């Protein structure tokens, strides 16, 4: 796949880079979002990065159970698929940065 574009998500002092690539099977451009349930990541302040589709959070503040519908979800721009959780109950010690964003 050609990496023809990249978007940098910046929140709470941390950045995550997401590549845009052309998927021939789907015949469209798709973003290669990291799966934070497999590769956890947090900001220097200890706020965790989440995917909007995550639906197993015990502190979800919504009947819909997904991070995207939760009031604690913060994203850089409206409609983003990843963002950080601002709920203090989910804060962690800053997880060592892996290679997903840098």
């Amino acid at each position: 796949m050609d990496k023809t574009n990249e978007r940098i998500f910046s929140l709470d002092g941390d950045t995550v880079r997401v590549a845009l690539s052309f998927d021939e099977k789907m015949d469209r451009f798709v973003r290669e979002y990291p799966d934070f349930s497999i590769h956890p990541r947090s900001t220097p302040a200890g706020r965790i990065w989440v995917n909007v589709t995550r639906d197993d959070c015990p502190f979800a503040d919504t009947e819909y159970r997904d991070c995207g519908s939760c009031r604690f979800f913060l994203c850089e721009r409206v409609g983003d698929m990843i963002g950080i959780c601002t709920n203090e109950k989910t804060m962690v010690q800053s997880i060592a940065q892996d290679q997903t964003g840098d």
Partner: protein
Amino acid sequence: MTFESAQNAAARLGVTIRAVQKWAKEGRIPYAYKEGQDWKIPVSAERPDAERFAEERYHEPMPIVHVFPPGKAREYVESIEDPHDRAMALCEYHYMRGEFKECTVIAEPYMDSENPVLRSTSALFCMFSNLCRGHMVKTHYAASVIRKALEEVMSGNYPKETSASCLLCAKFLKVQLHLPLDDLKKMELQMRYLDEGVRLMACYLLAHIAYLEKDYERALGIAETALAFASEDILVPQIYLSIVAAMALMNLMRVNDAREALRYAWRAAERDGFFVPFVEHYSLLQGMVEKEFKNDYPQELEKIRQVAKEFNESWYKVYNEKSNYKVAENLTSTEFTVAMLYSRNWRAKEIAAHMELSERTIMNYITLIYDKLQINSKKELCGFMLR
């Protein structure tokens, strides 16, 4: 000559007392006379408007549920003697088989019939056939014919069977297409005037209403009770009732029972090729059609998919002109299924097990669906999806 009161005459003729008094006053009932304040009517008097229906009289008030013997629907249709009955039976036969052009060719002339029930019934077939073909102007016109027929029977002196049939047609508009209709009488009160097959279709509508109100236990109860009482050869309502039972069972997370109900519906439908009920409920069956038909009925599945795509696109145009239209247009059938299940609070793991895909694949699908619809939450997705 023996006479009776206006009240007795009204009960015998199936009209209101006021209608009998009006006819008598107008001199339309021979030998009727007034004694004090009361009219005396000959017991042999007939309705003065009887000849109005003579040309187009048929036996079943709403022929949408002809008694098709399983596997012999076409032969049955050809055996019907009454030409109007046969025409409506043929409409139903063609519609159920997805032969929408053939259905509308027969039905359209009846939308000008003097008989409001024939008008309503033919308009119902035209409406849904044109919906499946994406002919929106004709769809809206047929809906208006149904509305006007209902207004006519509700304000005129029509037999209760007639008004019950027209009410049922109008109820289809409200329940299946969510079109606004004011002051619809409670259908439950009218059902007693309908024949068995039509009454079963009314039960299907009641179950569907309960489903839309998210009262899935009630929807299932109505469907199962109606099926228990249904005669074996009243085919079409059995298909619809089984399908609505499957829908309710899916929402109750009784997936195996839902699959059994769907298989029952298909066994009833397949011998005559009546696949259209599965098109109409494709989205509401939440991926079950895909899963159950994929291996054993691939050709039928492909046909259902094609017609369902057109049906859903047109349905959304009728239901919501703006925001919901892009749901049907942009999503593939698999994406649509995932979207439906996810919006019903199924977890990704459960969807993966149901569709025999990996959880990672389902998450990718959800991300893709969000991207296509330009949303980023389940809350927004629920706002799009069918209820």
